[in-house]
């Protein structure tokens, strides 16, 4: 049985402009010791997904199921969820400065968190805090435990957050853009800490990021999200080498190649749809270079492509010849990116 099994999750918010359908039918599973990467651009619903599972979205209409160790997280009362959140499911957010309280010492915040779930003496908890900070590579942890968050650098704060999230040895760690605010060398340190902890404790990790490079580094399985839905799902190698969905293809092509020559980038024309008025049919069809008639009216189901485990929500044939014959330039007035002729 999967550690976490999310089925058909829908989340929407009522706003002054209309109903925002942030998540529209998302399902995924994660096993122990695995890392699931969720990629997508701003507004694709990737953060809302996991926040809802953790009961952190307010004033949302939620439907679906999220089975964690045999119990549905979405059906739990807040106090039941409280006992799981932090203890069995740890979380790390993007901005470590705003997730640590600036008035309290780092160690105190870890101690408080431990004692909330685990009745131990303050001294014991403090010992544990020092141990955890050492574990995530904070130098002189026995002294730094009494520092305030502002005395830590960005990378150290994020490591302190990881220490806190790992304090009770959770079965699942949710990391929402954990390295986005960090420099590359610090990012490398933090990712190293995460994968080390995973090897040591068998923690399952859900990693949300927009950076496909980070995904290639740490994920085992990948979900690509677009406009609140999963458009493709597969293991890491398949996503990078045998992806099927045109959006995944577009994402990978719009990155500057690391080794290749510096040719013109293949950008995806246009921009993601507003979550208030998602286009009918496939949500990606206005930007897709393979668009066909049925894409405009029928929503493609997330279906198996060839092997078990590779799912894609696209009407396209697997055959690359058929695929290429369909390919054409999508032109959009006012976006010279997509027009061929450069002005003189």
């Amino acid at each position: 049985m999967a550690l976490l099994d999310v089925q058909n999750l829908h989340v929407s918010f009522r706003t002054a402009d209309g109903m925002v359908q942030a998540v529209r039918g998302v399902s995924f599973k994660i096993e122990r010791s695995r890392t699931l990467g969720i990629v997508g651009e701003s507004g694709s619903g990737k953060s809302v997904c996991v926040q809802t599972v953790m009961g952190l979205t307010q004033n949302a209409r939620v439907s679906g199921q999220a089975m964690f160790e045999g119990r549905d997280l979405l059906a739990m009362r807040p106090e039941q969820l409280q006992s799981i959140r932090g203890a069995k499911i740890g979380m790390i957010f993007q901005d470590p400065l705003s997730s640590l309280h600036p008035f309290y010492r780092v160690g105190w915040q870890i101690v408080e968190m431990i004692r909330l779930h685990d009745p131990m003496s303050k001294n014991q908890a403090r010992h544990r805090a020092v141990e955890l900070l050492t574990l995530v590579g904070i130098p002189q942890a026995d002294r730094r435990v009494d520092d305030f968050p502002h005395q830590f650098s960005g990378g150290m704060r994020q490591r302190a957050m990881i220490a806190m999230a790992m304090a009770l040895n959770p079965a699942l760690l949710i990391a929402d853009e954990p390295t986005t605010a960090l420099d590359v060398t610090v990012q490398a340190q933090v990712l190293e800490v995460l994968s080390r902890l995973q090897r040591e404790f068998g923690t399952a990790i859900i990693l949300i990021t927009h950076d496909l490079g980070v995904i290639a580094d740490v994920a085992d399985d990948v979900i690509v999200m677009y406009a609140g839905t999963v458009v493709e799902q597969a293991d890491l190698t398949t996503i990078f080498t045998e992806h099927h969905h045109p959006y995944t293809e577009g994402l990978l092509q719009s990155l500057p190649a690391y080794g290749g020559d510096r040719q013109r980038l293949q950008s995806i024309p246009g921009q993601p749809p507003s979550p208030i008025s998602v286009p009918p049919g496939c949500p990606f069809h206005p930007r897709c270079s393979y668009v066909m008639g049925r894409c405009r009216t029928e929503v493609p189901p997330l279906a198996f492509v060839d092997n078990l485990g590779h799912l894609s929500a696209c009407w396209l044939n697997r055959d690359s010849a058929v695929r290429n014959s369909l390919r054409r330039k999508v032109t959009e007035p006012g976006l010279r990116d997509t027009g061929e002729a450069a002005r003189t």
Partner: protein
Amino acid sequence: MTAPSDRSGTEDVLLRLEDVVKHFPVRSSALIRGSREVVHAVDGVDLEVRRGETIGLVGETGCGKSTLARCIARLHDVTSGRITFDGHDITTLSARRMRPYRREIQMIFQDPYGSLNPRRRVGSIIGDPFAIHKIAKGEDRKRRVQHLMELVGLNPEHYNRFPAEFSGGQRQRIGVARALAFRPKLVICDEPVSALDVSIQAQILNLLADLQSELGLTYIFIAHDLSVVRHVSNSVAVMYLGKVVEQAPVDQLWAHPRHPYTDALLSAVPIPDVERANRRDRIILVGDVPSPINPPAGCRFHPRCPKAQQACVDEVPDLSSRVGNDPGHLAACHFPVQDGEDISKFTSALGSDQRVVETGLMSGS
């Protein structure tokens, strides 16, 4: 000195920086002693930018790359050193005498949300340069603004819209249009795509490349995303704690980084390619960048450098050709990385008081 219009060739130097220093005073904690501390934001940078080229400035947060850009645009006055633009020393020009050069040096900023006034219409925002320099009024200005909008791929009919009605990528196009109003010679792009999603980022990078070839622009391109810098630049300068530690043509730098910091920085970039990601060795640096208030003596990288020796503490390495006598490839390192050398196999020869000590998990690689 030559007049700004007097130019020749494509290889000539548009911008030259000589020993540019920018220090910011900070309030000292030791007020009693009356000593004043300074942040050594930029600490002696020499740089040449040739006409029509793109030079990339890379480095981590706090390395001084944005401060340097602002010094070039004279948004900061430099503490010492000299900035020569198009043959003219602009280091200390008064605001009035600087004005003609302001048209020729423009900036594009990172945040397309923060750099546009939300209460003004797009046409008037892009028209600002014309208003400030008292050029073109009324219909003429509108015509010019609409031409600029078209140039950057915006619909000229959206002249009367507010910034909020545009997406992030379109807003960045507005920023580009405003910077191009006077056909500048030098455009400083300070993290122009960092706030954008990847698919939109590619659109803006393509736009910048098109404009460069059409208008013969010279770019100084600042970004923390190294694959973006590699994509757009002809040559790259790597900064660490206020100094340029390495400078080389882009392919040369990626193929043979000479400074250990460059080597570590490049190896830390996550590559969106599973086969490559599995194959390569990653150098993980220990510790964090030290405070620019009190930078380390000698080579500023020595506390974190696996190749450090006593000489690195005693003597500041100058930026010069280090390996193979290539005049285009400069590195500021006493013990540059040789071809095929794996610096993660080295251990610093310095005592534990002189270097960052590894702890716990970070000791593995």
